[in-house]
């Protein structure tokens, strides 16, 4: 099954990359950008036909290694 994991940095953790890109956009005249964060998306294909079980397995992967609980939250979407 195809699965997408989105890993987002917690709002309270600085995102220097996002800040720099936002500043660059402003310099280019795009002054209406009020917030910009750069996050990470991971695409997986996982064996199995039960979306719930696949989701649980990928969430376990997130807690174990894919996301850092100190910095990041994650959402798992099973695309089928």
């Amino acid at each position, binding site marked *: 099954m195809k699965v997408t994991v989105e890993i987002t940095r*917690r709002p309270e*953790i600085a995102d*220097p*990359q996002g800040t*720099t890109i936002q500043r660059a956009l402003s310099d280019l005249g795009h002054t209406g950008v009020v917030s910009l964060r750069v996050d990470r998306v991971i695409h997986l294909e996982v064996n199995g036909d039960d979306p719930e079980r696949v989701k649980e397995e990928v969430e376990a992967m997130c807690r174990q*290694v894919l996301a850092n609980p*100190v*910095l990041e939250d994650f959402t798992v979407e099973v695309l089928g």
Partner: protein
Amino acid sequence: MRVAVVVFPGTNCELDVAHALTSLGGEAELVWHRETDLSGFDGAVLPGGFAHGDYLRTGAIARFSPVMSEVGRMAAEGRPVLGICNGFQVLCESGLLPGALIANRDLAFICRFVDLEVVDTGTILTGAAEPGQRIRIPLNSYEGNWVDPSRTGRIAVRYVDNPNGSQGSAAAVSNREGNVVGIMPHPERGSDELLGSADGLVLLEGFLRSLVPA
């Protein structure tokens, strides 16, 4: 007193660390990351580099290398465990140190000498230094910006002019017990006047003094 200098694929400071420890009379032995038995070693150093290519996040893959369960055991037993640069990142990912390391505030790879101040001499890295002692050694990192939302980290050494945005200007951080320490600048690269500084020796000397027979 034997020190395990752990080598992951992508580690690149292991020889410098081993040389510096040896020059101080220590016995340093390189240990491949697949090793599963560190009994007989009195302490461990995780040197700098790019363990497992820094893929996913710095240290994220390295923390699952087989040797890390032994490093965790040594830490739990109170033995000295020191992470330098990438080794600091591995220790944070492993949960052996609080917090995490993110990209430098100004998104620049910083490679230059930095001025440091010892603020806590009760750790395995700082036991030979004086409180307030100034040290000048090289910093060489991109993800050197330490953040600790839990605010439980014990800052052992701080930057005088916080070049990377680290919380509390932290350059070296310890666990509560003081036996696990991560430092972002490189003491081993400041271990001989030929390198432009020998200030790092007092830190490595402190580490060696903290070793007790296994």
